[in-house]
């Protein structure tokens, strides 16, 4: 079973690392991006707070955005998402709504 991704990590008892390796291989390197976009959607749907979503996006981009776990196309989506969120923040800030 040497070819299975994350199997050796699983045998060593590193469960989160093994799960990350398996899902990251299955989803072709998109697991962090999918988790983050789901997280953003949950924040926006449940709290309706764009500032909170933007701050979490800044933290995520600072920590993981330019690491080797990210595909370059994710940065494109991330930039557009953050630009829209910051635009909404500015708009609400200036228009006092």
């Amino acid at each position, binding site marked *: 079973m040497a070819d299975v991704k994350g199997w050796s990590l699983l045998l060593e008892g590193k469960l989160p690392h093994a799960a990350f390796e398996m899902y990251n291989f299955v989803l072709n390197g998109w697991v962090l991006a999918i988790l983050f976009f789901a997280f953003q959607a949950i924040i926006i749907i449940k709290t309706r707070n764009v500032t909170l979503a933007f701050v979490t996006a*800044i933290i995520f*981009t600072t920590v993981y*955005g*330019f690491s080797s776990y990210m595909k*370059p196309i994710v*940065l*494109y989506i991330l*930039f*557009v998402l*953050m*630009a*829209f*969120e*910051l*635009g*909404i*923040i*500015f*708009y609400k800030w*200036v*228009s006092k709504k």
Partner: protein
Amino acid sequence: MKEVVFIILFFSIMLNFAVGTLGEIFPQFDATQKGGMSYDPGFQTEFDDTFNQSINPAGQVQKTDSFLNSLFDILGLGFITQIFDVVNQYAFGFVNLLQNIFGTYLGDNLSTFLFGGIKAILSMAYAIAAFYIFTGRVLVEGE
């Protein structure tokens, strides 16, 4: 409809500010990841170069390679084209952003047709809203 027009115009300007701010926060984003919307360094270089140069006498034509630009400078049309550039950047910045994001998947002809049509409709809405601002009369019935 005029409220929607003002919201679109205002949101486009705020989106420009947002893209410029994000480009300053994360310099690692390169130009291809910004959807064609980025801070224009031409303003800064124009500002710096203007203040670094010596004072020229009035009426001197700026030397450019293009004869058309020199002619525009003589006629005063170059100023108008610059105004149109600024209008294109701010009034249609939102449409330009959408075109830069989705236009590559549509092909040149369809992209130009679709987003050019959106710009045409939006410019008509801008004209109606500007008429409302200056005269106070609503042109479109049923509002």
